[in-house]
């Protein structure tokens, strides 16, 4: 009599744990990598490394790029999109970087600003500079 309910409990708990594990792993994969096929685990790890910038920074950079290039507000600017592909010339890029400097209260060195060609690159550099600024200020 006593043995039956015990096995029942064991079964359900193990079921639960596997379900939870399965759920969390898919939760991780879908939003991070946005991968439809291929090797999701590989793609996500690569994505995490290259995407050091926070989503807020990325969004802000996208907004600045949109206003600077006078793009429609509903147009999609992906982090990997090159400024040149959006119709920006080198003068536009200078303007974008200058506006970003003001938005984030940082100063981008000239050598660095010429290496920025995508939203992702801009956001990564901004995060680095903002961190540096925050680290030096309280001291």
């Amino acid at each position, binding site marked *: 009599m006593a043995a039956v309910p015990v096995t029942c409990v064991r079964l359900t708990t193990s079921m639960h744990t596997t379900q939870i594990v399965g759920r969390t792993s898919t939760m991780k994969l879908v939003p991070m990598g946005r991968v439809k096929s291929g090797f999701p685990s590989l793609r996500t790890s690569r994505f995490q490394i290259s995407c050091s910038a926070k989503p807020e920074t990325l969004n802000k950079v996208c907004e600045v790029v949109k206003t600077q290039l006078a793009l429609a507000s509903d147009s999609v600017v992906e982090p990997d999109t*090159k400024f040149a*592909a959006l119709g920006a010339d080198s*003068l536009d890029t*200078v303007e974008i970087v200058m506006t970003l400097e003001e938005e984030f209260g940082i100063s981008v060195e000239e050598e660095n*600003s*010429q290496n920025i060609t995508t939203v992702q690159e801009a956001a990564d550099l901004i995060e680095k500079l903002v961190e540096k600024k925050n680290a030096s200020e309280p001291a």
Partner: protein
Amino acid sequence: MGASRPQKLSGIQKQVLSLYRGFLRTARAKTLENRAHIESLVSAEFRKNSELIDRKNFLHIEYLLRRGKKQLDQLKTVDSVRLSSTNVELSDTKQQSSG
């Protein structure tokens, strides 16, 4: 199109961009109204010349670079003579295109 374009800039291109950056930086120190004025003028001037002048016409580009640097220095030292400095710029280009 843009993805395949090499991002390497020539020395003179870097100089032009650096001058442009200098103008925009200097404009930040001015009042809001003057700043907008300077920015629109400078941007129009650079864009116009970028289309007007052949990219191999180094003599002309170098001349414009020198002139721009002088104008930038002037803009830096004088507090807010936006109109006089921009008028000079405009009349200069008119002389050029006519002569």
